């Protein structure tokens, strides 16, 4: 039993290593994809897209476009329902998604 367990653990370690490899390559692929200028040109949604989502159809939807590394802080809800944004790399754009 002990020998079988040792062999099983070695197999799990191999699986773990292969998964780690796939995660690294997927992360790199996604990074290259989002940085590709051609893809960036078509990487947008429309207000209609947001309104087409059932949960959002009857809601007020605020869209926040912030530079990288912007800090979003949410106060403990038992004290207040507060969101604060602090950017260090440029202005933050906030607007309401129109209903129609």
């Amino acid at each position, binding site marked *: 039993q002990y020998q079988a367990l040792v062999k099983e653990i070695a197999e799990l370690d191999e699986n773990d290593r292969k*998964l780690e490899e796939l*995660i690294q390559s997927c992360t790199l692929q996604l990074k290259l994809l989002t940085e590709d200028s051609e893809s960036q040109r078509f990487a947008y949604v*429309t207000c209609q897209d947001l309104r087409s989502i059932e949960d959002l159809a009857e809601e007020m939807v605020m869209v926040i476009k912030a530079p990288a590394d912007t800090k979003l802080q949410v106060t403990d809800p038992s004290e207040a329902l507060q969101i604060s944004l602090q*950017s260090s790399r440029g202005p933050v754009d906030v607007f309401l998604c129109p209903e129609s």
Partner: protein
Amino acid sequence: AQEFQNLEVEKQRRIERIKQKRAQLQELILQQIAFKNLVQRNRQSEQQTQSPPAPNSTIQLPFIIVNTSKRTVIDCSISSDKFEYLFNFDNTFEIHDDIEVLKRMGMSFGLESGKCTPENLKSANSLIPKVLQPYVAEMADGSSWANREVPTDLIQTA
């Protein structure tokens, strides 16, 4: 016997870690599919209309959304340089990032909820490298690995 017990614990620890890595890999695959599907949709749409959408009607990625009831009153303070905002709500709200929005728009073909039709599975597979397709198949039929034994044959080299 003691050593055997210790190895059993080691084995469980490894299985847990593999489950987490599989979930992380599946999320990365979903994000890649959703992003490529969105880019493909917009590119085809612009080719058909022969013109880009009106400039103020699109929201470029990355973004996040905050949604709340229409009855909510929001007090908002903004610094003059627009580097700082403070929002006070009088009702609950939700925050979602762009990838969550893409999933809800159906850009990941329902893979995240295990409801993917065979045609959509084919479309999803066309957007990712072949080595990742077994993982997409797993998501498509909703048999998440999170609660299953590790199917060793499915894990292929990168």
